[in-house]
C-alpha cells in the first residue's frame, strides 16, 4: 500500500510539472491563471495523499481546506485585477 501511495505521489508531481510548463511558457495571462489553478488542485490532492501516507489524514485535511479557500481568494483577486486594469 505504501508503495502504491508513493507512486501516486510521484505521478501527481509529474502532473504538476506539466501544469508548471504551461505557467512558465503560457503566452497569455489566462494560460498562467489556469495553470496556477490546476497546480493548486493537484497540490490539494497531493496533501491529502501525503496525509494518508503518513496516516495522519485529519491534520492534512485542515491544511488542504485552507489551501482551497485561499486559492479561491487568489483567483478572485486576479479576476478583479484583470477586470479593472484590462488585459496586459
Amino acid at each position, binding site marked *: 500500500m505504501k508503495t502504491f501511495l*508513493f507512486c501516486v*505521489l*510521484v505521478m501527481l*508531481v*509529474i502532473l*504538476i*510539472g506539466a501544469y*508548471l510548463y504551461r*505557467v*512558465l511558457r*503560457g503566452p497569455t*495571462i489566462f494560460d*498562467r*491563471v489556469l*495553470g*496556477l489553478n490546476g*497546480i*493548486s488542485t493537484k*497540490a490539494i490532492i*497531493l*496533501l491529502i495523499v*501525503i496525509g494518508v501516507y*503518513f496516516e*495522519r489524514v485529519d*491534520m*492534512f485535511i*485542515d*491544511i488542504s481546506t*485552507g*489551501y482551497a*479557500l*485561499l*486559492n479561491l*481568494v*487568489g483567483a478572485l*483577486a*486576479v479576476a*478583479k*485585477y484583470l477586470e*479593472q*486594469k484590462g488585459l*496586459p
Partner: protein
Amino acid sequence: MIFSFEIPLLLLLLATAAGAIMVKDLMSSILLLGTYGFTLALIWAWLGAVDVAFVEAVVGAGLATVLFLLTLFRTAPKDTRLRRPPPSLTTLIVFPLLGVLLLYAAEDLPEFGDPNSPASAHISPIYLKQSYQDSHTPNVVTSVLMDYRSLDTMIETVVIFSAGIACALLLRRET
C-alpha cells in the same frame, strides 16, 4: 528508499523560483510566486512540519499573492515590464562561492530525523513532557510559541502590527 520524494519537489521549487525571476511580466511573476508558495508548503508537509506548511499555504501562497496584486493596483499600470541589467562579474563569482560555503557548513548539521541530535535528545522531550503542566495548552507548538517564547512572539506581533498599520495608511483611498 533510494529515491526520495523531496527531489522532485525541490526541482519544482527551483523551477518556480527561477521562473519568477526570469519572467518579464510582473503579473506572471506574482502567479509564479504563488506556485512557489504551494510547492514550499508541500515540502514542509512532506517533512512533517504541518503547522509551518499551514502558515506557508495561507500566508505565502494565498495572502502574498493578494498583497502583491494590491501593490500592482496602486502602482502605475504602464511600467509593468521589468528591464534589469545583466548581473555583474562580481555577482557571478561571489554568490556561487557563498552557496558552496553554506553547503559546506550544512555538512555538520545532524541528519534529518536523527533521534540523537541535540535538539531531539535534550529539548524536545522536555517540551513534550512539561508543556501541559506548565501552560495547560494541549498543542505543544502553541505552548512553545505563546508561553516559552512569549516575549519573542510579542515583539514579532508588534512588528507585524506596525507593518499592517503602515500598509493600511499607504493603501487607503485618497478622498
